């Protein structure tokens, strides 16, 4: 787009600036809309599994429910507790929301359709997602209230624990793809198994890692069954207890933007991103735009997330830690060794 603006006679710097701003808006605005609709979808799926109707009053089929909620939240009063640490209290939701948005800069939507095609894309995602915990910790501490503080401690321990196994999973994907660039990783999955199946998830050595990543991504976004940070039976509403109005809405939006991001990462890292699942032209298979494949996969994973939320009871905290440290960590470490050993044998050859 930069070149297009330059052809209008703009200076390079300004053309780049304008193109980048437009690129950011093209990603961020539909993302906000997607968050609103995905909250609606979440509630509908959850309701259907509980044999309820879910939101059905505002708009046709209740489609406008999220917007009504947004409007309501917008019109409410922002309450800052007297004992709270004012600056940090207001900073926390901003951090959560910003972090949830900046990660989308490196997500490739189609071949070449990506805002920042940097060669450390995956590390950038890891870095940004490890920042996400600060929003929660700061919110919990700045509220100066017991339950939010417990929630913040839980969140910190939970996210740091699961990031360890997520790190190993990502490294095994990077080993196979040979690059940290997300577009490169997707392209590396083309015709990966038997020259037929697109996606590292179809590879028997990487499939267990895909499962570990799916479950860890639920833990990382603090979704059910790992939503101990806001376990309502124990902690009221967790770190958001003292928040109201837009500050609460920012947490809400950031949380769901993170969930969509994790679904997108599942699709991109293991299930071929914008590529169709099979590398043969069945129906007009390749004519379907890649972005639709990606969205389909994201929606599928979101359905899985909702499904799990509706059906799996919440973990106890010690069970959560056990799963992270005693099961996922050894498992992902073992597979990391297996994968690097296999690659040494097949791809590089073992000297002597």
């Amino acid at each position, binding site marked *: 787009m930069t070149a297009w603006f330059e052809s209008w006679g703009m200076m390079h*710097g300004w053309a780049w600036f304008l193109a980048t701003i437009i690129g950011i808006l093209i990603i961020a605005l539909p993302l906000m809309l997607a968050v609103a609709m995905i909250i609606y979808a979440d509630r509908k799926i959850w309701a259907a599994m509980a044999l309820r109707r879910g939101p059905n009053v505002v708009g046709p089929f209740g489609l406008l429910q999220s917007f009504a909620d947004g409007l309501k939240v917008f019109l409410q009063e922002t309450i800052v507790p007297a004992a709270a640490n004012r600056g*940090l209290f207001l900073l926390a939701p901003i951090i959560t929301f910003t972090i949830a948005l900046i990660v989308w800069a490196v997500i490739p939507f189609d071949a070449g359709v990506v805002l920042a095609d*940097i*060669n*450390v894309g995956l*590390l*950038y995602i*890891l*870095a940004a997602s*490890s*920042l996400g*915990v*600060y929003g929660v*910790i*700061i919110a919990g*501490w700045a509220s100066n209230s017991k339950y939010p*503080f417990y929630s*913040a*401690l839980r969140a*910190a*321990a939970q*996210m*740091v624990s699961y*990031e360890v196994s997520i790190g190993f999973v990502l490294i095994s994907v990077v080993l196979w793809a040979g690059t*940290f660039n997300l577009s490169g990783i997707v392209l590396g999955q083309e015709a990966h198994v038997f020259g037929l199946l697109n996606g590292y998830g179809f590879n028997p050595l990487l499939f267990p890692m895909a499962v570990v990543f799916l479950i860890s991504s639920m833990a990382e976004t603090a979704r059910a069954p790992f939503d101990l940070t806001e376990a309502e039976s124990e902690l009221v509403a967790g770190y958001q207890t003292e928040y109201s109005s837009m500050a609460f809405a920012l947490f809400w939006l950031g949380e769901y933007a993170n969930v969509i991001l994790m679904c997108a990462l599942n699709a991109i890292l293991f299930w071929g991103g914008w590529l169709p699942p099979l590398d043969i032209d069945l129906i007009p298979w390749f004519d379907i735009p890649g972005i639709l494949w990606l969205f389909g996969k994201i929606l599928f994973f979101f359905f899985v997330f909702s499904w799990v939320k509706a059906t799996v009871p919440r973990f106890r905290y*010690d*069970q959560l830690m*056990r799963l992270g440290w005693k099961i996922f960590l050894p498992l992902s470490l073992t597979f990391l060794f297996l994968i690097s050993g296999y690659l040494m044998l097949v791809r590089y050859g073992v000297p002597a």
Partner: protein
Amino acid sequence: MIQTLAFYLFAIVVIAAAVLTITARNPVHSVLWLILAFFNAAGLMLIAGAEFIAMLLVIVYVGAVAVLFLFVVMMLDVDFAEMRAGFMRYLPFGLLLALVLAAEVIFAVAAWNAGGVDMGARIAPAAGDMPNIEAMGRLLYTRYLYIFEAAGLVLLVAMVGAIVLTHRTRGGTRPQNIARQVRRRPQDSTRNMKPSVGQGVEL
């Protein structure tokens, strides 16, 4: 142009955040300023073209180390007045350290003005188009392999040491043994008793 601006932005924020880290009254604020300093240092690395180091700085320091710092500091019950009281006592020592650092800086600048040292020449210049993860990996796993492995061993020993020193098995708890729970079968744990009238069940 934009690089220069970005450099001054990051550099000023790093220094300001560092000053605020040591002057902030509240230890939690101190840690948060420290995090800001780490983050901007990563920005400086990015400008220097070391994007891998920048990302590692954010992932390791900001994402893990500082979270644990914050975790510990938040749970500490700190008496602010007492902390202030120590200020005068440590002042001479702090001034001495500052003096040594200032002398070193002056010395380094003078040495730099005198011309480069031969030892400072790069041993293995990386190709310009190579991503710096690759360049670094190539050096770490060939030329510096033994040093790298030794550093890894030191960290491993430190980790094992920390666990050995702090781990203790607590008595009097009944931890969950998940394997035993899964292994348990109904027929092993239930009995069908048919007690006749007037007789109880022996457990």
